């Protein structure tokens, strides 16, 4: 906490710069002629506004005053800091600066802390009595943390200042449009809606097995393209075993029932031929 910030310029000093005797008072402060300004406090009035703009508010100004004199923030000599702060505020008023309300609120707070510290503490209340500076110290510390965090943030390498995004030109042809992704669950949910809307499937009784029959129907029909006849036996793949043959047979029966294929047997015991009716 003892690191001093370089605020530039003048030496820290609590001393005063006294005006030559006989000179008119600088200002009337609280009814008293002001003939001297603390040395490190003196700023030409016309520069005051600029000076003030370098502070981010009363907390910043207080931190400056504390750092200026190399004071431990935990050990603020409140009377001294208050006096300096009040001097600034008075000075601002003297030169008719439009003073942000925050500065006046802080002045009031400092004055309150100071007056409370001057009052004798009732012994009974001593335990509960929190040092009136504690809240101010907490706020000052909190503010200082973020003030430093802001400086650290400013020092981080940043795009466009310390590093640059690499980019290379690309001659791209026509943009392709990717088809959307679909989850099977979406398809099934859509189907559920169909089933709920019109329960037409109740009499169709599509069951787990008949789905493989439906699939086989589509496969058989796809094979029977064109106007040609296929031998009945060719539609069976005996590598599928008995169950596969049953599925194909059921598919053929269903296709016949739906009028999608016709079976032709020229004579009894002659080979059966199959043809797609719409083929």
């Amino acid at each position, binding site marked *: 906490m003892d690191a001093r910030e370089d605020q530039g310029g003048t030496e820290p000093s609590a001393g005063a710069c006294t005006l030559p005797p006989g000179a008119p008072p600088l200002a009337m402060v609280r009814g008293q002629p002001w003939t001297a300004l603390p040395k490190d406090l003196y700023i030409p009035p016309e520069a005051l506004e600029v000076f003030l703009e370098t502070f981010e508010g009363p907390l910043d100004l207080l931190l400056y005053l504390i750092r200026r004199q190399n004071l431990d923030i935990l050990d603020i000599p409140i009377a001294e800091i208050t006096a300096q702060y009040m001097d600034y505020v008075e000075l601002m008023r003297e030169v008719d600066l439009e003073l942000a309300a925050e500065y006046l609120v802080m002045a009031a707070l400092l004055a309150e802390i100071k007056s409370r510290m001057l009052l004798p503490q009732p012994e009974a209340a001593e335990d509960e009595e929190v040092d009136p500076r504690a809240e101010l110290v907490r706020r000052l510390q909190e503010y200082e943390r973020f003030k430093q965090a802001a400086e650290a943030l400013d020092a981080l390498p940043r795009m466009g200042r310390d590093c*640059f*995004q*690499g*980019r*290379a*030109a*690309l*001659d*791209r*042809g026509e*943009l*392709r*449009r*990717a*088809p*959307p992704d*679909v*989850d*099977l*669950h*979406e*398809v*099934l*949910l*859509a*189907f*559920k*809606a*169909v*089933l*709920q*809307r*019109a329960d*037409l*499937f109740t009499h*169709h009784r*599509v*069951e*787990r*097995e008949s*789905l*493989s029959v*439906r*699939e086989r*129907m*589509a496969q058989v*029909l*796809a094979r*029977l*393209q064109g106007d040609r006849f296929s031998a009945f036996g060719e539609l069976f793949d005996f590598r599928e075993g008995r169950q596969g043959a049953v599925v194909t047979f059921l598919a053929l029966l269903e296709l016949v029932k739906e*009028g*999608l294929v016709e079976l032709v047997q020229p004579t009894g015991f002659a080979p059966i031929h199959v043809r*797609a*009716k*719409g*083929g």
Partner: protein
Amino acid sequence: MSPPTLKQILEGALLAAGTPLTLERLRGLFPEAERPSPGEVREALASLAEDCRHRGIELTEVAGGLRLQVRSEVAPWVSRLWEEKAPRYSRALLETLAIIAYRQPVTRGEIEEIRGVGVSSQIVKTLVEREWVRVIGHRDVPGRPALYATTRQFLDYFGLKGLDELPPLQEVRELGEMAPGLPLEPPGGPSS
């Protein structure tokens, strides 16, 4: 890395600029006292171009000067960065797809009858273009309407070995809106 070489500075500048830079502009990156000659810059650029032979970018000279650009060989992959995702499929399309899957072979008229509303040609066209659905024949009735069925690609896309891996109707009826993932058994068969 210290201090950077001329080649490294030139590469950094060309990639930071993202637009072509002239030789003079590149020389202008250096204060006059340290400015490399045009010959030195050209030499460094030649070396950079040589390095790029094994990279995803190449150094080319265009009207505006020199630029580093993505090699045409990798462009087919890279341009996928800008591929637009099409908007999601409509409910009508998904319903149509489901009906074809469960009722194939089926005509458009039959789909319309089940859905209770018309099926736009656009939906059927999209499904055929996606190669999820194809025409496998025609029903032998007036107008000879096309019969639609699902394809091998349809099964592959949804990770199904066959249509019988689709849940039976009863399960579809009980489907929860929030059910995560698929209500299907793992491909290896029922685990219970």
